[in-house]
């Protein structure tokens, strides 16, 4: 896609998303809000998987840490300030990622996948089995954080429409942030590490530090998603940190096409869409979903983000010869 087409496509998508609350169907607004949250989550993982070449299978840990942080930091029967709990929970998930990154980034390939998973399971059991997390039932967030600044309330997260636009705004900010840093010298180094880490080292880059920065950043951005998830649903459970969740977000990134931020968003929408549709057909929706994902990986290399180029090629060449 040319950059103009791609811009038009993104703005059209954004306009479409902005129209969702106009339907007035609270079910769809909540579903779309949840999907937007997962889209932010998928973009944060794509920074690692698609741009730095770090396949993390434990990204749900940072999502969950932030979600639990909101619930734990909020007073039981009154609203916490958004301007305190949002940075605090995001900061905690970034801190968790920094600490875990110090260990896991010493490994590579399959070992990295396994060690990230191990740390995520560790975090899962911390919230599942200690008094801190309230066991498998989780914790309720009874009152949503308040956006009040010195008596002035710019928006209310209690209001489903306000919350929806807040999340959509967060998606745009996270997208713009990632798109921007990927153009920076820092971002170019990450992409270089993905392409040929050994060469980056021989050119004088201490790649460990760059990877640690990326891992921490991805953890923090994943934390934004976790924060929003807790606010949307009003409760948190250890399931948020489970390996299913880590696997799902990885599938969203793969479906969308690794290394493409818009692809990650599309992947989140297709994934949740399939969950809903197949779930309405059959109890065994995961079986259908598994088949679709296998087919997508086999017949759609490069994921959804590669589709426009493939269509273009097919139209120009009168058929694909792949």
């Amino acid at each position: 896609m040319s950059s103009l087409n791609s811009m038009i496509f993104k703005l059209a998508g954004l306009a479409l998303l902005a129209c969702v609350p106009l339907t007035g169907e609270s079910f769809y607004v909540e579903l779309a809000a949840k999907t937007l949250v997962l889209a932010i989550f998928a973009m944060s993982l794509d920074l690692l998987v698609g741009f730095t070449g770090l396949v993390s299978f434990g990204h749900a840990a940072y999502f969950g840490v932030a979600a639990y942080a909101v619930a734990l930091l909020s007073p039981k029967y009154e609203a916490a300030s958004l301007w305190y709990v949002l940075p605090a929970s995001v900061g905690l998930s970034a801190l968790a990622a920094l600490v875990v990154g110090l260990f896991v980034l010493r490994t590579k390939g399959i070992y990295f996948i396994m060690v990230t998973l191990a740390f995520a399971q560790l975090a899962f059991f911390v919230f599942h089995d200690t008094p801190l997390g309230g066991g498998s039932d989780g914790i309720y967030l009874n009152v949503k954080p308040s956006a009040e600044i010195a008596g002035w309330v710019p928006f209310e997260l209690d209001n489903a429409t306000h919350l929806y636009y807040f999340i959509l705004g967060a998606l745009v900010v996270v997208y713009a942030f990632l798109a921007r840093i990927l153009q920076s010298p820092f971002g170019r180094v990450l992409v270089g590490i993905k392409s040929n880490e050994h060469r980056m080292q021989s050119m004088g880059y201490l790649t460990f530090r760059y990877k640690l920065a990326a891992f921490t950043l991805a953890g923090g951005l994943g934390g934004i998603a976790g924060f929003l998830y807790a606010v949307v649903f009003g409760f948190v459970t250890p399931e948020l940190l489970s390996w299913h969740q880590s696997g799902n977000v990885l599938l969203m990134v793969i479906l969308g096409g690794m290394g493409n931020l818009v692809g990650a968003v599309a992947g989140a929408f297709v994934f949740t869409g399939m969950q809903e549709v197949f779930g309405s057909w059959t109890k065994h929706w995961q079986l259908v979903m598994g088949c679709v994902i296998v087919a997508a990986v086999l017949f759609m290399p490069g994921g959804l983000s590669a589709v426009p180029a493939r269509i273009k090629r097919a139209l120009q060449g009168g058929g694909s010869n792949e």
Partner: protein
Amino acid sequence: MSEVINPGLSAAVQAAPAGEILLVAERITRRFGGLVANQDVCVTLPRGKVHVLLGPNGAGKSTCINMLSGDLPPSEGTIHFMGKDITGLSAAQRSQVGIGRSYQRTNIFPKFTVLENVRLAAQSRRQQPWRIFSKAMKQQWALEKARACIEEAGLGAKVDWIAGVLSHGEQRQLEIAMVLATDAQVMLLDEPLAGMGSDESARMVEVLKRLKPSRAILLVEHDMDAVFAVADTITVMVNGQVLESGPPAQIKASVAVQQAYLGQEDSFHV
């Protein structure tokens, strides 16, 4: 040919005295389990000289380069750069002090453009990772340096090409451009002429001659015409050990070298 001479180095470095000893490796040894790949190898690289490592396959030339570049830690021995002990430094740290290398098997970023390959190398000299909101493509100094180094390596016409589609010889030139862009004062070049046509090869020899005055160059090479065209010192390695080291004339006349090399060749013909 380009007018830019030694685009990678600052004026101060270019004015540094020739003959100054840059890199000294003393009795470096590398073992892989029971195999001794390098034993007590000594290499001295003065500025302004080209030092060639010769030897049959498996003689330990690449192991030696890997130890000098930091890709492999030596099992024994020390390596000094401008008087400082750098034996314990990693490859990235050695690159930062001024030791650059190219690889025997082409080692580039195949999906990036030629410019981006070299721009990344240039950027490594002034890393500002905290400036995450600045645009890499607006760092004029890195772009200019990259272009100058690409020109110097003779790839000026292919700046915007994707590196992976270049010919083998051009990819070797790209590697040289990348080493140049890192301001390397010591260049360790592992078979830069391998697989090049005679024109490309001759041009690369010209490039090496132009780079030589302000740098120390260690070259592993099999192309004898090129070797004798650029070498100031030749070290012949056999079975991980230095057989003989000295000026080209001495090596040419050496009986031991003739036996190691020509002796083998004779046996093929008999």
